[in-house]
């Protein structure tokens, strides 16, 4: 596991990601005292009050645990650069990862017909807007997927 941010230039969420054996994954923490896992990475365990945590790979596949559609344009600090008129609704969900940790994330679809609790999801990067200088803004997201590795 290697938190190789150089692979992901101009990505504000690069520090949340890790290059694991199965590709791009989410970087979290694991408590050395009680084993509780966290996303994003943290230096304190709210379960056992410990403060000795090590980086861990949260993975890149999971199942949709809950979802909604963001139908109105959020106020600042949302920075997609869209106008109210051009705003495109986006899906938001929690994805349950193999460890049981649920990760909040944008979803690649905002169509309720394409979303169902329990469906397999895979990590990806999406463009969600652009900066004033025209550079794309990217973040992590989850996309519905057919195949899923192992039994989650």
């Amino acid at each position: 596991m290697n938190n190789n941010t150089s692979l992901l230039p101009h990505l504000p969420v690069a520090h949340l990601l890790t290059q694991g054996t199965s590709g791009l994954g989410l970087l979290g923490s694991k408590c050395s005292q009680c084993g509780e896992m966290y996303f994003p990475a943290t230096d304190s365990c709210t379960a056992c009050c410990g403060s000795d945590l090590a980086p861990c790979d949260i993975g890149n596949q999971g199942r949709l645990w809950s979802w909604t559609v963001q139908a109105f344009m959020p106020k600042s600090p949302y920075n997609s650069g869209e106008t109210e008129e051009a705003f495109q609704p986006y899906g938001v969900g929690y994805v349950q990862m193999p460890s049981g940790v649920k990760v909040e994330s944008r979803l690649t679809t905002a169509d309720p017909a394409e979303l169902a609790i329990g469906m397999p999801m895979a990590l990806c990067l999406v463009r969600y807007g652009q900066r004033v200088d025209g550079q794309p803004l990217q973040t992590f997201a989850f996309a519905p997927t057919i195949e899923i590795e192992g039994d989650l």
Partner: protein
Amino acid sequence: MEDIAIIGIGMHSFGRTDGLSGQAQGAFAVREALRDAGVKWEQVGVAYGGSQDAGNADALANHLGLTGIPFVNVANGCATGGSALASVVSAIRSGMAEIGLAVGFDKHPRGAFNPQPADWGLEDWYGETGLMLTTQFFALKTQRYLHEHGIAEESLVHVAQRAFRNGALTPHAWRRRELSFEEIAESMAVNLPLRKYMFCNPAEGGAALVLCRASQAHKYSDTPIIVRAAVMRTRHHGSFEVFSPGLAARQAPAPTVTASRAAYESAGVGPEDIDVIQLQDTDSGSELIHLAENGFCEHGEQGLLLRSGATDIAGRLPVNTDGGCLANGEPVGASGLRQVIEVCTQLRRQAGARQVPGAPRLGYTHVYGAPGVSAVTILEAP
């Protein structure tokens, strides 16, 4: 433990009052509560209060008089009023003062709340990428809850319908128009499964209580309300709270559950003894969840309860008889005390067209909010 009683209640109507500051609305509510108790401001020996967006409560002394009173500012979000009340009860019980005041007020900008990541210990990306919205959280929590407990989305409509029906009966409510099932069910999607009329709006207003020892209460009031419990609790590891980029693998009960249990234990009563109820209804989904978390039904029973009218004013479990947050809006600092005032009004049998029939003896109030706090009170009729 010595009983403490509410001897005065006062409100500045919730809604929008242009040209009047949040603090002025708070001071108005205090004067109303003092008048109700027949007490002068100079007689009040301790005060706790707060607002989220309208400044410090102790600035109310500039309106009410600079008497040197120990005035403590409370900042506990939605639990501000509940925390203030619990603190005043403890202060009077300790002998610190004979008469105490709890006050909450607020004046929020229009539109959704606009939190900043750093204030919540979060990084900028969380807000910048569009994940930091309270409405989103309520929707995600509701969606999961409906799924886990097999509740139909129509229950969300029924909650809102009852709120506006009760609001229409409440002279001081902000939203006084009944809405049909279709109007609610077909209103604009905000964050599915929650729609426009299933959310309360940020608002303005003030609410205040005057309290003293129950043994002294009849000097001031013919209808003192005994505070049987006033409890505030915060979250445990594993509870599903707002602004969480990740949730723990293991799940724990919400702070509502721990606050509720502590309140029942302190009062020596159970949910089956309660005659009139106020539950936090920032949105229809939250009220649905809170019905079970406070012990008024099993998880999953809400659909039937709502359909059968059990939560209506004349039902077995009258909930949010004044229309709750949905019909009154939510001035965060004042909202919890608005609940207490409505229950006091019901227990005094002064609620007019929205009066719970019979002689309600025990009332219950519940708030819940960010970042995982809950306050519960149990109140008893004179």
